[in-house]
């Protein structure tokens, strides 16, 4: 009897302890890392810049897809063509998965050109993803004799293209065409902003400008310009012709036609990869792999979120995402270049 009672008691105890155990387990079970935390996205431009609008849009939708739905805030850190933000994210911010950077896609140029100011290794950033891939085009005033890139090749006096500074597409794209296609452009740089170049084109001070296809279709003055055939597009830099620009050849088609050398092609790939990096979001090196994965997944999911896409359309922000994995391998590719390419890069960037 006593035996049975004791057995019963032990049974009860076991039973009770089971009850005790369950809540204890769930208390000690790890709460999601991001719960109650705040993620900062360091944006490399001033507030309100087009570069700034994408991270701000993301910040509204990312938390939904991160376990623990953390707060996300934007910190603008403009200056030195995004180098300040990139150096900060890479060197100063803690690799705890709570700092992200929205930096310029072509900063690897600085690394390739071996600039001391670039205090990062492009390949070691943890790439989270990119909201949009952006290819470029070159427009030319229609009332000039330059109807094709062939005309530019044969021109006695080269056309004048406007740009803001040596690190702008307005400067290095025409340079790249010179290097790979044998065209000649006179580059007039020093304009305050892209809009000032457009105004100079309208006035006839310069005749051409290279910039992104996205902007060409999103904004004035280009909408009016296209209506009155004020400019024509001579070349585009995507692998395939853009749906909306069926008549303009790609740089790759022209490189085939003009039998560009292997080293020239390589140079083109390196420079144009900037378009594939698009508007990248990165984390510093050394962030625990599981947190990188959480953010990459969250990025991929939120960039496909229906509400986000609707909102992006409303705000006139084109979305064409690139995944973190893609960017990670692309980063390795672009940085591994032989010395002759590095030398041509430096020449291209006016050094």
């Amino acid at each position, binding site marked *: 009897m006593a035996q049975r009672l004791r057995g019963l008691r032990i049974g009860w105890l076991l039973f009770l302890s089971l009850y005790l155990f369950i809540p204890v387990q769930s208390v000690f079970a790890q709460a999601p890392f991001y719960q109650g935390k705040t993620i900062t996205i360091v944006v490399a431009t001033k507030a309100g810049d087009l570069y700034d609008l994408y991270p701000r849009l993301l910040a509204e939708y990312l938390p939904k897809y991160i376990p623990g739905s953390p707060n996300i805030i934007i910190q603008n850190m403009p200056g030195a063509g995004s180098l300040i933000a990139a150096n900060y994210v890479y060197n100063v911010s803690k690799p705890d998965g709570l700092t992200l950077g929205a930096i310029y896609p072509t900063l690897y140029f600085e690394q390739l050109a071996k600039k001391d100011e670039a205090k990062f290794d492009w390949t070691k950033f943890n790439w989270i993803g990119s909201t949009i891939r952006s290819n470029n085009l070159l427009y030319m005033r229609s009332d000039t004799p330059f109807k094709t890139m062939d005309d530019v090749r044969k021109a006695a006096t080269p056309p004048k293209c406007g740009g803001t500074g040596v690190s702008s597409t307005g400067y290095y794209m025409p340079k790249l065409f010179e290097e790979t296609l044998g065209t000649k452009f006179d580059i007039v740089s020093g304009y305050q902003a892209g809009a000032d170049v457009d105004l100079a084109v309208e006035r006839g001070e310069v005749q051409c400008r290279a910039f992104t296809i996205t902007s060409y279709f999103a904004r004035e003055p280009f909408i009016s310009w296209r209506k009155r055939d004020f400019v024509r597009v001579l070349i585009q830099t995507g692998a395939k012709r853009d749906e909306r620009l069926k008549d303009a050849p790609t740089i790759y088609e022209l490189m085939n036609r003009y039998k560009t050398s292997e080293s020239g092609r390589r140079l083109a790939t390196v420079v144009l990869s900037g378009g594939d990096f698009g508007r990248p979001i990165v984390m510093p090196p050394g962030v625990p792999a599981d947190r990188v994965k959480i953010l990459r997944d969250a990025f991929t999911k939120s960039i496909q979120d229906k509400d986000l896409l609707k909102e992006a359309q409303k*705000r006139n922000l084109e979305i064409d995402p690139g995944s973190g994995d893609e960017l990670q391998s692309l980063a390795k590719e672009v940085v591994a270049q032989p010395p002759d390419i590095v030398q041509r890069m430096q020449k291209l960037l006016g050094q």
Partner: protein
Amino acid sequence: MLEAFLSGLWQVLAWPAFGYLLLGIAIGFWVGLLPGIGGLATLALLLPFSYNIKSPVAAFCFLLGMLAVTGTTGDLTSILFGIPGEGSSAALILDGYPMSKKGEAGRALGAAIMSSAIGAVIGALSLALSIPIMRPLVLLFGSPELFIITIMGITFIGTLAGSSLIKGLLAGGIGLMLAAIGVDPQTGALRYTLGALYLWDGLDITPVAVGLFAIPEIVDLAVRGTSISNVPRGKLSGVMEGVKDTFRHFWLVMRCSLIGVYFGVLPVLGANVAQWISYAHAVNGLKDRSRAGKGAVEGVLGPGAANNSTRGGDLIPTLAFGIPGSGSMALLIGALLIVGLQPGPEMLKTRLDVTFAMVWILIIANLIVAALCFLVLNQLAALTFIRGSLLIPFLLFLVFIGSFTANNNLYDLLVTLIFGFLGYFMVLYGWPRPPLILGLILGKMGENYLWISTQAYGAKWLLFPSVIILILITIAVIAYPTIKEKRGKARYERPEDAI
């Protein structure tokens, strides 16, 4: 045309557009008052809120209404404390703050608000009147012409120099040299960056202006140990006196408003330059030049009108070409896109009423804020009679917040301190500070336009008729005070001869 003009007005006055306008004004009031927190940054922050406003006019009431009043209330901070409330209000410190010291804060505030309101109306009317001739007007000025205009601006350094021309020219030269700091946009060369990434973009105007003008005044206030005003409240301190001043110098206010419109139309230049040019113009016209910088009300009226009228001018290139005339216009275009409007030549044809609504927003917002200001001006002016030791911590806080928000960079504070130090000694040894700022602002622009002109046209641009005309105007501007002085003397001497 008239129909669209009136329809624009009704749309602004209709509910909920008018409510949004009031909200925008309320925000803009504080943004302007607080140094550093500028209209541009606030616009960026407000933009997402405008996404949900369905009607384009209502969205614009909110955004443009906010932007339109920042210039007005920014003037108040400059006058009361000697701290520029907005970057474009710095010129008001020169004579506005000395007026506060003389116990005439109310008068200065009244003059600033009234001239701002007139400037805004002139700016808006110019916008409305120029709609048919917008395109040729904007295309008139290419890089060669803009280069000569920056040179014209630089010649005003002589006027701003005050009593000592040599010191003024040297200060201007230092400003021009400081403008060389940063990445050279033509070759990518790094100039005087001392290994600091912060200096790649050159010196930001805000921390420099805040340091140069505000810090010496705060030190001075601490040393004097009194309130900002040296004298007890007097009779001439009234707000109404300032309003009367505006009408006493009505043509000066008109001319400075037009200067503002003109600089608004020109790309890149804008209110930051217009304020100094119109200050120089106002001071140039003083019969007794020694009054400049010691609290001449003309020095408040000129920049007060100009920095508000630029807004109207600013909208002209935006509407004529869909090309933004300034950073804030670029953001406004973004707001219009969201409500499905493409600002530009098309919009002028299809939605002229929206364009006129903008004109009305500029006018109505400024009239409302002027009325609002008059309600509180006497109270604001009373701040200048508070003991300095109570004000100083608050002022220092404003100074450092103001300069830090320029780039969110700690170096901004360092720059403020360095230029505060420099400014203090400049004041101590009688060196004028405005030429330095003007040199810094115009130096970079002038260099770029010279380079662009030469790259685009070789040396041929020197013979453009427009360039030659502008050069002649520049010479006339330089020669005018001397001629006037001589003539004035001649007239003065004649009666004596007769006797």
